[in-house]
Each structure stands twice: as C-alpha cells, then as structure tokens.
C-alpha cells in the first residue's frame, strides 16, 4: 500500500533521512522505532508532505505522491495524527473531528461522527468543549478521531504515547486496536518501544536518519528496546 524508496530529507545542511526505504502492506501496523532524532517524524512528515524530500520517492496505492501537496495526499486516503497531538485548540472537540471529513458531505460526516463517538464515548461527552482544554490523553483521542474521520486507507500516527501517563497509554493502545479491528493500515512512530511493539506486526529500527534493522516484531525487539534507552 505504501512504498518509500531511497528517501532523503534535508533541513538546511542537516540530513534528517539518508536513503530510507520502507514498505507497508494493506492491513499491517508497521512501527518506526528509534531514539529522539532518529528520523522517525521526518519520515512521517515526508509521507504526508509536510516536508519535501530532496531525493527518493513515496508511492501510495500505486500512485507517486512526490508531486502532490500535503492536502492532496490527505485526500488521496492518508490520515495523519501529528506528534504532540496539535489539536485545533480553540475549536470544539466535534469540530476538530469533523475537520478530517471536510468536503465529504453531511451524510458522510454524520456517519464518521456516529462511528467515532461510538468507539470513543469521550468525544460525545466533550463534543462542545474546546479541544485545548482537554488533557493530553484526551487530546490524543481527538487527534486519532480527526485522522480517522475521513475513513482513510492508511493512518500515520506520530508518537501517540508522547508525554502520556501509563493509564492513557493503555487507552490509546486500545484505540489503535479499534483501528486495526476495522482493517485500517497503520504506520506509527514511537520512542516508547515497549507498548508500541505490542501493537505492531512489523517494524523498522531507525537511528541517525537511517534504517538499522527491519523485520517482524520478534526480529527487531532486542534492538528496538535497546534504542529506547539511547
């Protein structure tokens, strides 16, 4: 479904990604794991189009995304939940969620809201509350729902556990399982390898802007857990 080949990303003179290649098949949950600065978020941002790649290609569902803007990539079927949640703080929870379903018509929006607020009752309870007033874990649920409201084929989850208490990590993990149960393909990054490995089917261990190892969860577990402490 997603094929990234030989991708390079530079921030001025700093090379954030050095010839990274990854693949994500339909229905998989693929984990990008590595320490801070490993290039995980740069890779996610390059896939959604928030940063430009200086070399390499990103193909999604057989289509080359390289020339497409960020909004075109999202409308092509990619959902995005950013690092640090970045909910629209002054907007209500419901408006945040429906932003992801913009332009899809009232019926599709109602369907998305009913489905998501059914999975995450918190959304209904806090529907009218400004999202900026929610706790970090609650905001993460809103960011998930916003990414899912367009019923995307692929969801990018960037550091979903970042800064969360263990109780919220468990709840967010459950939310990811809900996405998996629906058959959603997921590419997620996480510094906290231990809980993330429980959710993934395959993974890539990154360091210094490169992929150091890839394979099944069992194959990468040792290196991934070692990287967690770096």
């Amino acid at each position, binding site marked *: 479904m997603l094929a990234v080949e030989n991708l390079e990303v530079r921030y001025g003179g700093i090379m954030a990604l050095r010839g990274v290649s990854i693949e994500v098949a339909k229905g998989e949950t693929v984990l990008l794991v590595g320490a801070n600065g490993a290039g995980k978020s740069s890779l996610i941002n390059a896939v*959604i*189009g*928030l940063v430009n790649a200086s070399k390499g290609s990103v193909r999604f569902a057989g289509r080359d995304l390289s020339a497409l*803007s*960020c*909004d075109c990539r*999202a*409308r092509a079927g990619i959902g*995005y939940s*950013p690092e640090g949640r*970045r909910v*629209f*703080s*002054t*907007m209500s929870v419901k*408006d*945040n969620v*429906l*932003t*992801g379903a*913009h*332009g899809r018509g009232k019926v599709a929006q109602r369907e998305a809201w009913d489905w998501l607020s059914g999975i995450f009752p918190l959304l209904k309870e806090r529907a009218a509350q400004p999202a900026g007033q929610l706790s970090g874990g609650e905001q993460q649920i809103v960011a998930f729902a*916003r*990414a899912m409201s*367009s019923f995307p084929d692929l969801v990018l989850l960037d550091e979903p556990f970042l800064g969360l208490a263990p109780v919220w990590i468990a709840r967010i993990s459950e939310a990811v399982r809900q996405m998996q149960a629906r058959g959603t393909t997921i590419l997620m990054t996480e510094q906290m390898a231990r809980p993330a490995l429980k959710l993934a089917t395959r993974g890539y261990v990154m360091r210094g802007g490169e992929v150091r190892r890839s394979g099944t969860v069992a194959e990468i577990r040792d290196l991934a857990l070692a990287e967690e402490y770096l």
Partner: protein
Amino acid sequence: MEGLVATGLIGISLGAQYALLALGFTLIFGILGVVNFAHGGFYVLGGYIAYATTTHLGAPYPVAVVIAALGTAGLGYVFERFLLERLVDDHLATLMLTLGLYLMMSSGILVVFGPESPSFEFPITGVLRGGGFYFPLQNLIVLAVCIVAIVTLYWLVYHTDFGRALRALADDRAVAAAQGLRPKLLFPLAFALATGLAGLTGALVTPILSLAPHIGDPVLATSFLIVILGGLGSVGGATVAAFIVGLIEAYSAVYLGGSKGALALFTLVLLMLVIRPSGLFGREARGA
C-alpha cells in the same frame, strides 16, 4: 434624555459599520497572518463602485451595493490567488504588497473619478421618532444591513464546513492541510469574503459620511484600533471592540468634541496594550 438615547443609537450604528470592517480585517490576519493595508482601499472602492453603478449605469442603490460587495470580493480573490498567495508567509512582502495595492487603488480612483468628492447620497432620508428617541432612517437601514451581514458572517464562520475549515487553518495551517483542507482554495475565498465586507461597508456608509479617494486612511486606522482592542485575529473580540469604539466615538463627539473623543479612544487602546497586550479576547500567540 432624547439626545442621550439618540447618540447611543448612532453609536450602535457606527459600531455595526466598524464591526463589518474590522471583522474582515481580523479574519485576514487570523487566517492568513497578513495585515491587510489595502483594507481601507476596498472600502473606498466599494463606495465608488456603488456610486458609479447608480450614477453612470442608473442601477437602483440596493443593486449597486450588491455589485460593490461582489466586485471588491472578486478583486480580493484575484489579488490573493495570484499575488499574495505566493508570499503569504513573508510578512514584509505581504505588507509591501497590500500597501502597494492600496496606493494603486487610491491612485486609480483619483485618475478615474478625480480628487473632488462626488455627490453620492443615500436614497432614503427622514427620521424615525419614538418615545424619547430619534434615529435617522438611513442609519437604521445601514444598521439593519450590517447586523444581517454580521449574523451571516458568524453563521458562516461557526456553523458551516467552510467556516470550520477557515478556523482550522487559522489555528494550525500545516496540520489543517494534512487533514485535507486546501489552503490554495480557502485562502483566496477568505480574502474575498473580507474584502467583500469592506466593499459592502463602503457602499453602505459612504453615501451617509463622505466619498473621496483618500478616505481609506482613517478606515484602516479605525480597523487597526478595533482589532488591537478586541485581540488580533479574534472575531468575537473585533465585534465587541467595534461597538465599544462606535459608542465612545458617538458620545465623545457630542459631549466632548471630536478631537477629545479620538484622544479618549487612543488612551483606551494604550491602556489595553499595557494591561492586556493580547487585547480583550486575543490569544497570547498565534498558531504557526
């Protein structure tokens, strides 16, 4: 007592006019992060389009007002889409572009219509009198149209997909785009909405006040003052501040004299900046 009530009504009417102007100004800042120095120019252009449509084409005044609003909105769309959009993140460049557009609009109007104020009068005259108050009918009509426009704008911003998308872009442009919102479509539309409001206000108000090529300067200054008082980028703040400014202007003009009124206003804004730098309803910092 009659004078007190009448002045209050004039103040509310002024406030509604200022609100329409300031809402457009604050929308552009809030969504695009652009301080539109051409905003006063769209007000003047709206007045001249309405004047030319009624005088030279013989159209009824309400039709002229609609044409003025649509014309200024169209120009705003084209300006944003083909010039401003390319440089929207460069604050100095957008400042120069909007200032340049204002100078071009003022000069163009001067060349086409000349420096003299044309005779452009509101088609309805008369005064509404009631128990303890009087109110010029033209002000009443302008007030009604402004309130309808303000309510429509609020509905658009807070109860439609379009408004939700604009608010998301204002909050975090990058993340909004990553949710599939199209800045290249929505930014020009937002700009057109704002300049259309300025043109509508110009078409409504210039027959009552005055019409001349350079009246855009005080309009820009008042818009600035209102959005600073209300909080840059805040739609609610701009509305409340506009009515505060309108009432202060009206009462000070009657009871203190025009220059003292302006002094009172600027003192108020200065105090606001010292006590609450982000304005009445402003946020501490704008999203990237």
